[in-house]
């Protein structure tokens, strides 16, 4: 199989290179924003640029292959990134993290906020823990501009809680452009890049699929979902995090939304110009999903979903087979809060322990997670690698096992 695949890919690559020369028509790298990151299986790094409305693919397939991928830990990583960029830590915005599947190097996309302009940067953390600015200009790359990119002027409408007017802290949201949601998450699967975000000038939640190597082809379909806890059909709020897995015998995209339904979309439904209704199969109880990492634990395929408001959720992929699809007929009318008898609902797996808050997380090698973790007590931002079966450090925990007497008593 693998041999065959390679033979087929070669002429494809050649023809797409030719096509790109006329397509992209830009040898100069013009990246304006480094947002969402995703690696292909062989080490091509996709970077979402919400300012240019484009995805860049940097060829990093020539990376060194270590004997084995080791954990990498970097304390105060935001300070170190700021040091490299020549600004204070408050002038660095961290956008995403992705681990190279072969080299075990970790890449972090950031925005360097200067006095007068901001600039994109991608920081590489080597296996030995050393940080370096990635020289993107030295890498072969392809650029794919996105069709139906939303307008870049419209901003969020600030809201207050319930009927209360928005407070000053809420009003700040009114300065943020909706186009910042245009490239939310990317997933590479069998020669295609899947991209979630908002598209079109009316900001519809969309899924794009783009063959890679880029050849100018792309499809975009809008996605509607029955939002269980809001008790309404929603067409705008985008898919925040996603993964592609075989469910019910075919490849399906598992989509996690804010507050917090999980829905399935079969890949063959993502057809250009179509409107898809995602099948909502669960709601694990509020919060905004950050990342969805697939991994295997004790021979079972799992999804690890981080969230800005709660501990991570671990969901066995197998539990999503033959899942009931929820519609408005299945729930009482009105919004369902965490404490309603119906919530959580569907195959939601389990909430697991995680010390601190993961800003971004990815799988590192077979058995590790690498996370940018905000420490609860110091507020510091650290890059931690921990076993995926128990992604914690004991630093902030005090338990019976921390007493020397405990071990003496056991003798």
């Amino acid at each position: 199989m693998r041999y065959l695949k390679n033979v087929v890919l070669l002429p494809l690559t050649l023809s797409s290179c030719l096509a790109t020369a006329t397509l992209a028509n830009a040898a100069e790298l013009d990246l304006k924003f480094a947002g969402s990151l995703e690696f292909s299986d062989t080490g091509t790094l996709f970077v979402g640029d919400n300012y240019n409305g484009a995805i860049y693919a940097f060829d990093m397939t020539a990376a060194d292959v270590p004997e084995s991928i080791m954990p990498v830990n970097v304390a105060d990583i935001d300070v170190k990134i700021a040091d490299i960029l020549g600004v204070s830590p408050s002038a660095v915005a961290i956008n995403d993290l992705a681990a190279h599947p072969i080299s075990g190097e970790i890449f972090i996309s950031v925005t360097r906020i200067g006095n007068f302009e901001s600039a994109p940067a991608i920081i590489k953390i080597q296996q030995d823990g050393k940080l370096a600015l990635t020289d993107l200009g030295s890498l072969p790359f392809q650029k794919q501009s996105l069709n139906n990119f939303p307008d870049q002027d419209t901003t969020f409408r600030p809201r207050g809680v319930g009927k209360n007017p928005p407070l000053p802290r809420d009003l700040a949201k009114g300065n943020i452009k909706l186009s910042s949601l245009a490239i939310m998450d990317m997933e590479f699967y069998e020669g295609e890049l899947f991209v979630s975000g908002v598209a079109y000038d009316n900001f519809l939640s969309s899924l794009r699929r783009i063959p890679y190597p880029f050849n100018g082809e792309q499809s975009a379909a809008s996605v509607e979902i029955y939002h269980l806890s809001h008790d309404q059909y929603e067409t705008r709020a985008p898919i925040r995090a996603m993964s592609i897995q075989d469910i019910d015998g075919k490849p399906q995209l598992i989509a996690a939304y804010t507050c917090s339904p999980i829905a399935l979309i079969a890949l063959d439904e993502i057809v250009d110009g179509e409107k898809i209704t995602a099948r909502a199969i669960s709601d694990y109880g509020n919060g905004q999903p950050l990342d969805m990492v697939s991994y295997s634990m004790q021979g079972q395929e799992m999804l690890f979903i981080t969230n800005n408001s709660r501990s991570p959720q671990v969901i066995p992929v197998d539990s999503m087979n033959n899942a009931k699809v929820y519609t408005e007929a299945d729930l009482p009318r009105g919004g369902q809060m965490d404490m309603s008898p119906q919530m959580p609902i569907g195959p939601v797996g389990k909430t697991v322990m995680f010390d601190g808050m993961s800003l971004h997380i990815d799988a590192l090698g077979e058995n590790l997670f690498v996370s940018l973790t905000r420490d609860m007590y110091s507020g510091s931002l650290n890059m931690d690698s921990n076993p995926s079966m128990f992604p914690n450090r004991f630093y902030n925990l005090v338990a019976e096992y921390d007493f020397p007497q405990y071990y003496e008593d056991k003798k």
Partner: protein
Amino acid sequence: MSRKTQPVPLALQLFGCVFFLFGSTAYASDYQLLLPNNDRPHVELEFENRPTNSHPEKLFKLFTGPASNCCEGRTAMAGRYDTHETKLTFTPAFAFEKAQIYTISINYPNSQGEVIQELTEFFIPDVEAFSAPKVIGIYPSGSAIPENTLRFYIYFSTPMQPHVSSRHIKLVDAAGQVDDAAFMSFKQELWSEDRKRLTLLMDPGRIKRGVAQNLSMGPALAQSYTYTILINDGWPSARGEPLTGGFGKTFTASQALRTLPDTKTWETRVPGQNTNNPLVFVFDRPFDYELLKSAITVLDENGQPVNGDISIRDDEHTWIFTPEYRWHQERITVRVDSHLEDVAGNNFRDLLDHAMGTQLNSSEAIVLELSLTDE
């Protein structure tokens, strides 16, 4: 858990590398360090002998932040090293930010061959913010202005400290007598958003005839007399730098403006079609400098604004509009907002100082239809 490498003693590492750098010259002699500035975007080290460019980062590195916090455990800035003849330069991957402190760490061997670390701190000053503020203009700009002038604009070179204007601005007559009550005093001063323009109002109570201050104190400006608006040294900028050089604007008060402005009195110079010539209006009186920038708009046959540059000349008596592209229109419409005021605060609807019960003109704009001459 993490992989470890055997650390090489620091001194050894540095010595080895410096030796390598200088090749046959065993030890470095003096170097000259040139710091970055507004014209030089890089750090430059100049040697007596040509350095090689092998491992220049071991000879010197750049760090973000002050020397007091350097350099143990810190990560060096990203950038590029270049060798030119006897110079070694470091250009940061992202330009040095103004007012951000950086530290250069240089490791070089002295005459005994010991490696010495030398730390040099620098920052590139923000030239505008750190230079002493100056007054760069006052409007109305004429040497003769109506005695009932309502409003002055004072322009500064840099953002200024608010709430101290009354201490620093004075109206003085020809005999040197200061009039402390000439300008309106508010709790809130009238600054532009960037705090580089102050709007100064003459007290309208002294301009409007027959109201309290007008009766008790008389008008601040009287026709044929000469006055000076004085701005003293010492007014601090937003960054605390005091104003130097002072500023004085001397003018003679001319006859009061007590009639409504009227576009029929304007001299109009209509440009030729297919030319870049400007559209010019010459007024019978000086108008408000700031309002002139936005109150007159030029529209094409479809009612769309024509893009172009506006300039205001001849002591606010002349308005000049130069189009971005050649005039292709046969006809244009000029819309004059009826709220446009002359320097005495009279607009097309109403005199500032009108009698009670005067009928107001209620139109929003005066519309002038102009045919472009065929050239």
